[in-house]
């Protein structure tokens, strides 16, 4: 009996589908989006750091460019990714050790609140300077 089956490539994208899902699914999807974003950033960052090996002038000209408001905005986005991924990671780590499993939703809420507060504080600092 032939069946209706979806190709693997379509399966692989299903983690993105949060329709009709609950909080934990949003946590997972957010974690993955930020995770992938951070990997991309990591390699961009490592690439940019190669300027350090080219000597003082190329690095310092990059630094002056990076102090523009556009780059500072990107920094805030980066920080948001790090906070979401890092703090949600703490939830995954704790529940993985069988700690706070029943309170995982509340845990996620508290951690994301902490992320938001930290992000606002950091943004004020970044743009305040």
């Amino acid at each position: 009996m032939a069946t209706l089956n979806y190709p693997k490539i379509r399966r692989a994208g299903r983690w993105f589908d949060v329709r009709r899902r609950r909080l934990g699914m949003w946590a997972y999807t957010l974690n993955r989006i930020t995770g992938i974003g951070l990997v991309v950033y990591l390699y961009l960052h490592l690439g940019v750091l190669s300027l350090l090996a080219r000597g003082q002038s190329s690095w310092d000209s990059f630094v002056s460019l990076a102090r523009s408001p556009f780059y500072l905005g990107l920094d805030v986005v980066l920080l948001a990714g790090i906070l979401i991924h890092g703090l949600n990671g703490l939830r995954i780590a704790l529940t993985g050790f069988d700690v706070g499993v029943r309170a995982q939703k509340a845990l996620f809420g508290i951690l994301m609140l902490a992320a938001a507060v930290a992000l606002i504080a950091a943004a004020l600092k970044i743009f305040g300077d």
Partner: protein
Amino acid sequence: MISMKMLEIPLQIFRYREGEPPHYDIFTVQVADTAHVIDAMDAVWATRDRSFTFRRACHHSSCGSCSLRINGVEKLPCITRVMDVWDGHAPVRLDPLRNFPVVSDLVVDVSAFFQRMSAAGMTITRSAEPSLPVSVDNLAVTGVLSRPVEVPESLSRFNRFENCIECAICMSACPTMATDEKFLGPAGLAAIYRARQKADNPSDVAHLLGLADGEHGVWRCHSAFECTAACPQAVDPAGKIMALRRELIARRFKVAARAAAVVPRTRNYSAPAGPTKHGGNGA
């Protein structure tokens, strides 16, 4: 005669026939306001379209065969009241379970699910656990009955079926299952947990923990807890996955400690682990 209010309820049903593109059909059927969704499905089949296929058997959440998605969320139509999922206007949408090949309409091929349950090897019966509510005034209260429960002379202990009815709802709700075809899945891992609790022989325990520790075992779980939220039987598969993780981690450290000692390096899992905190109300 108790008066019975009848409803005209529209159902938007996923239809699929081999070789044809899937589509939705809308049927309006008459059911009592106290009816469950499965009664409405029955009415579609009996009065509207005899070619409509779906799975069902017990109509009271014991067999686990009728599981599907109602308005996108995994449910058992036999215990879901029509009034709880219908807003009074828009059709109630019925889709087959996710993550399983669709055979026809709402029928999916659940062999992948039963392969996992067979691999876990959990027996369907369990014994010696109190199964009666402590308080009937507040069913959420858990604990020990104030009156002691005696076991009939002819028996050594009471026994009962496991909570898991093998409805596969958790495997449909699981986002890891959505992408990783080889994942053992929430029910499979919860069954491993229960089988591990029942196992009294160290080699069985080692085998079960080995399964859970595989490349597509407990560590693939993304901690979305969708399975526990969707489970109609309060099996709490995610809780079981986390309990297995804890035991595996504890054993990993024990093995490491033993390897560091003078004792020759070994992968022996023979030391029985203490009872885990989910022990009381297993799958």
